[in-house]
């Protein structure tokens, strides 16, 4: 299968993971996404940036069925998503998501947060689930906090728990919705380090983030959005260093 996207870097994209075709979404009468078309290849790391209100969070929430959309279509590994059906088993088995506000379950311990899906949905025994979860917590460097409650952890630690909770379900694609925006500057790095490590394992990732350093380091392509439209797509050095559009330049001047 070949990709029609001219901006796609050659070689890495053997097969598309996500295909978005003319996606349109309205909140009431507000046109939030306007004719968005984008293809994310398998193992690709895509960074989505843009000013607030540009529709970047809405876009990745649509991918994960957290929002309905009215026009266009989204295919994940060739399977088309229903537009309105809110809970889709296939999608939730394929994609994990990390939120800006972590959204950990505060009444469960760190370990229980990670094993919940394994025991109830994947029908693992308690010991199997525990082993898997402890392995993941070790990977993000917080295995010593497994029996604490989320409220006792710092923001950076909570976000790392959230990442392991998603990874426990063994997703093919990981979506990150501004994972570092709610963190103190000193904690941003520990979360980004985990994401960089994850990128190195060959995970397909779509990240909404303002961390341009991260984008330059690991992204295969950067998407710049404005007013619900994709303005520019391309390799990071092109979009970040030599943007084609004045709006991109203006945005980058503000955040760099």
């Amino acid at each position, binding site marked *: 299968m070949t990709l029609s996207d001219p901006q796609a870097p050659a070689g890495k994209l053997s097969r598309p993971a996500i295909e978005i075709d003319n996606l349109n979404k309205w909140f009431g009468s507000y046109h939030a996404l306007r004719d968005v078309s984008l293809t994310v290849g398998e193992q690709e790391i895509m960074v989505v940036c843009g000013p607030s209100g540009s529709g970047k969070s809405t876009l990745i929430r649509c991918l994960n069925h*957290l929002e309905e959309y009215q026009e266009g279509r989204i295919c994940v590994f060739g399977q088309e998503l229903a537009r309105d059906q809110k*809970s889709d088993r296939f999608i939730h088995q394929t994609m994990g998501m990390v939120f800006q506000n972590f959204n950990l*379950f505060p*009444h469960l311990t760190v370990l229980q947060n990670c094993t*919940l*899906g394994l025991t109830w949905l994947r029908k693992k025994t308690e010991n199997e689930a525990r082993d898997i979860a402890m392995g993941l917590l070790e990977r993000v460097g917080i295995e010593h906090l497994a029996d604490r409650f989320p409220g006792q952890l710092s923001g950076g630690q909570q976000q790392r728990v959230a990442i392991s909770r998603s990874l426990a379900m063994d997703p093919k694609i990981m979506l990150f919705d501004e994972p570092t925006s709610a963190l103190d500057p000193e904690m941003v790095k520990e979360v980004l380090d985990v994401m960089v490590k994850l990128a190195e394992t060959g995970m397909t990732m779509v990240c909404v983030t303002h961390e341009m350093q991260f984008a330059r380091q690991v992204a295969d392509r950067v998407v710049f959005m404005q007013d619900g439209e994709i303005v520019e797509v391309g390799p990071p050095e092109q979009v970040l260093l030599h943007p084609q559009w004045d709006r991109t330049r203006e945005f980058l001047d503000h955040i760099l």
Partner: protein
Amino acid sequence: MSEQDLKHFVPTPPRLPARNEQNLRHRIQKQCFNNIGNSLLTISVLVLIYYVAKSFLDWAVFNAVWDAATRRECLDISPDGACWAGVIDWFNGLIYGRYPDEEQWRVNSGVVMALLWLLPLMSQRIAYRNSILISWITLYPFLGAYMFLGGTFGQDVGIIHMVFTSLAAGYFILLYLNWVLCAAGQSSLPEMVTPLTSKLFRRGQHMTGFLLVWGFLSILCGVVLAQMHLEPVPVDHWGGLFLTLIIASFAITMSIPVGILLALGRRSKLPVIHWLSMMLIELVRAVPLITVLFMAVTLLPIFLPSGAEPDKLSQVLFAVCLFAGAYMAENIRGGLQAIPDGQYEAAQTLGLGYWLTMGLIILPQAMRLMIPNIMTSFISMLKDTTLVSIIGLFDIMLMARNISNDKNWIGLHTEPLALISILFFVMCYGMSQYSLNLEKRLKAHRS
């Protein structure tokens, strides 16, 4: 600037705050007698407390009569003291109603069994604590009903009731055998039969082991119970505190599941379920409990086919359960609204469906938030059950009023009511303390 030029930061060692050295005398002086107005206020309040306490204690303790045959005798001994003799004479009636004296051990042992069933919940070491609670709600009522109603297996006890009573008795014995074995450091009974079950079944050995042992014990209990004969005591003879507790505990335990279903129904996106739940909640909440009770007693028999008319207690239980459930539904809905959307989204992205999301993520958090409100509901339900005396159930209130109709104790109103007040205060205060304790325990590991 190079490394050497930077000053090295050393944190100041922490110290404790200066202790307030004032003793109690100083504090009282400072807070109660710091000026003339406050001193006068303190003194007059103390005088008031003294007079109230003195006149109450004079009536209730110092001038009281504890031993007399009739009210007249009481008044002759001490005209302005309490006549506790009447209450003592009627004490059995207040507790058991008209339950026959020689059968009252069944009420006692039934209640003790209910408490013993719940006792393991206190221990943090017991696994599957939820299943104990669920078994108490689903199985214990059959065992309790058998104890209280009496009868003989196969004659007055129906086949379904027989089976569930045996299952309940079997579970109860299994629970305690396991606890004893656990305390003795042994493996539990289901684990002991695992070698046997593993030969028969490949999957779910623990579960089948448990079912096997439970089934065996239940059959054993059924055989033993079938040999026994308990004198039948019809529901009309139940009464007193015993009946009050049955109605209240039924209302309290049923209000949670009914309330959860109604609250979820009211938030449902399916219009039929939404409107039905909302109508039921609003209708029941807009009507006084007495009306609901009267409706249950007078209207329910009309809807049911003639001959299938349930006894008055079942009708009252149904009404109280509906009433308590509607109130609980609104409490729980309040808790549900306090849960941020992010929790639903996180659960959804993990792939948890509606019931798992509610059961594992949302409801546990919502219920914790609402503990004070839920406990307030429980307490008011316990007190509201005294209304059933109006439709002629001999609960503790009606028994108390009956004392003053007894020809020996004509006009004895105050003392029984005082006793009831004390009893209710002890129960309600206990519940409220328990809820405070629960809150503290659950809050301990958040933040």
